[in-house]
């Protein structure tokens, strides 16, 4: 079954078409990377999928549950708040700049939503949180505050916080763009270990080598459309001119 389906998604800001008719789907256990130049619409696509942004037209389904569909005029219609609340439990998002709650300790950042939103017991929430921190290699940091952590550590806490709600699919919005190369490595390692455990993930990234090795499928976006998609091998050997230009530029950078 497709965990996520987006059909003919359109979004414009002040007359600028950022997303022009995007369709994609993600199967259970699949890792999909979205690459492309800045301004190609990758982040907007992710923000439409996670409903931080409202799309102008198109469909959005999670596990067959309709979140957004088109009315007879081809305008996007959203499900009721009650239905959306349930749908929102299917996914989590890891932000580029973490957005941890600075006034909460690491453990409280991870346990607060499970306790107060999902109404889990304190014991269960703390047990899950400690398991997650161990996976992230941060078991020593549960009482630290975000400002006491490095960027890489903060991002790993943010990943644990998202996982604590037990989402079916996890989105990453350029999870390492705010980190230096050394810290990037530790975050990518965590994402890779999640992939090894068959966590379903959609990752917007500029880390080409990482996208190539961790993904089942890659989408290359350019100027608001999916310019190319396929397996990493297909994509990195693509004859698509824009794709070649994009990869070529990256190589020059390196």
């Amino acid at each position, binding site marked *: 079954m497709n965990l996520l389906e987006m059909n003919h998604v359109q979004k414009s800001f002040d007359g600028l078409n950022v997303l022009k008719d995007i369709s994609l789907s993600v199967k259970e256990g699949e890792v999909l990377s979205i690459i492309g130049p800045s301004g190609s619409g990758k982040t907007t696509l992710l923000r439409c999928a996670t409903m931080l942004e409202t799309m102008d037209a198109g469909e959005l389904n999670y596990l067959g549950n309709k979140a957004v569909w088109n009315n007879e005029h081809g305008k996007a219609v959203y499900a009721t708040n009650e239905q959306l609340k349930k749908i929102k439990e299917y996914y989590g998002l890891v932000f580029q700049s973490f957005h941890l*709650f*600075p006034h909460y300790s690491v453990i409280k950042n991870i346990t607060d939503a499970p306790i*107060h939103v999902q109404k889990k017991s304190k014991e269960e929430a703390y047990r899950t949180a400690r398991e997650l921190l161990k996976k992230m290699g941060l078991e020593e940091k549960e009482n630290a505050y975000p400002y006491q952590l490095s960027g890489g550590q903060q991002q790993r806490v943010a990943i644990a916080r998202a996982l604590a709600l037990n989402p079916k699919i996890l989105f990453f919005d350029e999870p390492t763009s705010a980190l230096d190369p050394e810290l990037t490595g530790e975050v990518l390692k965590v994402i890779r270990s999640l992939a090894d455990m068959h966590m379903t993930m959609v990752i917007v990234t500029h880390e080409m080598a990482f996208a190539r090795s961790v993904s089942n499928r890659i989408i290359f976006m350019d100027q608001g459309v999916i310019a190319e998609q396929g397996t990493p091998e297909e994509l990195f050997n693509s004859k698509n001119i824009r794709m070649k230009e994009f990869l070529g530029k990256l190589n020059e950078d390196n």
Partner: protein
Amino acid sequence: MDLNTILLELAKGMQVSIEIFAFTLIFSLPLGLVISFGRMAKNPIISTVTKFYISIMRGTPLMLQLMVVYFGPHYLFGMQLSLSYRFVAAIIGFSLNYAAYFAEIYRSGIESMPIGQYEAAKLLGYSRQQTFIKIILPQVIKRILPSITNEVITLVKDTSLVIVISVMEMFSYAREIASAQGIITPFIIAGAFYYLFNLFVAFIMEKIEKKLSYYR
């Protein structure tokens, strides 16, 4: 009149000053939050009305506002006002005025919060109320505390303004004794009282700031 008698007289007034101070904070701090919501409301009528309210409260003398609150009901509606209304009028006047200042301080704090905090809370499933109470407000309070301290210190000194509606607080007694006896001692004691009161306020606010400095 010896020093003890003066002090005793002034002490009666100090109690009233402290009451005005305390009641004003109790009413104006929450009211200010409500007004700041109005000021930030998407509804243009609500936000315009609140903006106008704040502009009047900040743009006219507090002394005049006290007089309007106290004499207004009589001049406008011919109501007979009891003496005890003086104190009530003082609290109403102060609360309405300070709430306007507090509202703008709250607004500055709320609007300075990064949007990412709201988005993270939304993704984690917090309701709008939970997001504000648990995530936003605690951080806002930390940010605005220095500005709040400023206002609270001003309030201590402003309590002496109720003299215009003949509420007998410390400064009124001081002036009375000073003119009756032809001595300056009551004014010096009054000055010392306001100064020490504010020293105490600053001390408490610093304690709170320290308490909130466990995170950045």
